[in-house]
């Protein structure tokens, strides 16, 4: 892929106290590209995404969106965040608002769009994921998978240029994972630029244009999905992939 660079991370360092979680991260995401970030638990995947959205401020290095620097304390951070949608693991819809208000709150109050126009877009998006009937429901009345789809739509309704997903299916019951991943695949097919953290390996392989493998605070591999999954270059990546594979159990019955 060789579109223009949309998101650029360079020399990113993030420490929590003594612990250096990210130790010089460099990569860029091109327009329309889907990058999946993999790595063992605690390697800093969430921290990386949070830095990219200005929720954490890096100790060194910088992140650029369309050439504009993102910094947590910066003046334009709220503006930049409108261009970067983020969905978290814990589907944090606002429990005090119904679905349609959850989705249109920021478009109306932050982007100053008309309520009517925002609602039209919200309803269109809800229809697309089969949740239009739930527009007046409250989050507590939805299943985890439904809530997570609404959370994705809430971010989409801001018309972002990039979407960040942090293990959005990790808290879901297995039967609900699919419906959420399907929404993400559709989004990717429409050309959305996406950075995805996930533990769903098959999904990662299917959706990714590129896989970034993070370990020990730095990028260990940055390659095409097929290459990464069939022929990882490093031992660490091999070991990591091993943890998802199951050996066929020796059967007890002959």
């Amino acid at each position, binding site marked *: 892929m060789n579109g223009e660079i949309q998101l650029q991370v360079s020399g990113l360092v993030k420490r929590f106290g003594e612990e250096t979680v990210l130790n010089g991260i460099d990569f860029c995401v091109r327009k329309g590209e889907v990058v999946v970030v993999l790595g063992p638990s605690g390697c800093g995947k969430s921290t990386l995404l949070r830095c990219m*959205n*200005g*929720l954490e401020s890096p100790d060194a290095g910088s992140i650029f969106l369309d050439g504009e620097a993102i910094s947590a304390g910066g003046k334009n951070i*709220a*503006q930049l*965040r*409108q261009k*970067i*949608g*983020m969905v*978290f693991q*814990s*589907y*944090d*819809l*606002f*429990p*005090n*608002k119904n679905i349609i208000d959850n989705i249109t*709150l*920021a478009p109306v*109050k*932050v*982007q100053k769009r008309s309520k009517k126009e925002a609602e039209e877009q919200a309803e269109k998006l809800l229809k697309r994921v089969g949740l239009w009937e739930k527009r007046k429901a409250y*989050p*507590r009345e939805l299943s985890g998978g439904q*809530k997570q789809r609404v*959370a994705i739509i*809430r*971010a989409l309704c*801001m018309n972002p240029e990039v979407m960040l997903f942090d293990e959005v299916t990790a808290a879901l019951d297995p039967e609900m994972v699919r419906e959420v991943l399907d929404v993400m695949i559709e989004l990717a097919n429409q050309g959305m630029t996406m950075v995805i953290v996930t533990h769903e390996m098959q999904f990662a392989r299917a959706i990714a244009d590129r896989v970034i493998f993070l370990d020990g605070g730095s990028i260990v591999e940055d390659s095409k999905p097929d290459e990464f999954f069939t022929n990882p270059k490093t031992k660490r990546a091999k070991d990591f992939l091993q943890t998802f594979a199951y050996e066929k159990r020796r059967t007890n019955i002959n």
Partner: protein
Amino acid sequence: MGLDFGFMQKYLPWYIDAAILTVRVSFFGILFSLVVGVICSVIRYYKIPVLQRIVSVYIEISRNTPLLVQLFFLYFGLPKIGIVWSAEICAVVGLAFLGGSYMSESIRSGLESVEKSQIESAASLGMSKALTMKEVIFPQALASSVPGICANVIFLIKETSVVSGIALADLMYVTKDLIGLYYETDEALIMLVAFYLVILLPVSVLASLIERRLRYAGFGN
């Protein structure tokens, strides 16, 4: 011992006037204590420098001095520096001064119970701090502080009984007056209790209705 119903009937209007005064002082005192409580709790929640220290001092003073002492200060103390308020204004201000700290603590615990992830998802939608407070944190905080707020309301209504100390003709004052004048102790006390119940029971019932509604609404994912 028979009750002197004639006496009770005769002085009923006194009690009604006194009850109206109690309700009026309670209403405005509680209203202002909510205002003070919201302001103080938000200051403490955001840990706004300087203001936060002032609020802490206020809360310590307010919680650790009896209302009667606060009222004496307002009613007898302030005139010495040239501020003269009517007894009723002193009562309202005193109640708000006392109630403000209780309300502040209740609301603050509500604010703190709102999960950090709620704030982060608001931030990731580009919402400002103020907008997040107004649309996300505060409504959720209020829902979870309602039981505390209701308890404070009832506590503050009961506390108004000390305003008789600055010669306001509330229920307590009228009762003491009648007992002093006519020694009709039983009748006066029965009327006192009855009037407090008339005021407090509906409030208490209303409070538990609101609490139940909120429980059903079951905020929280």
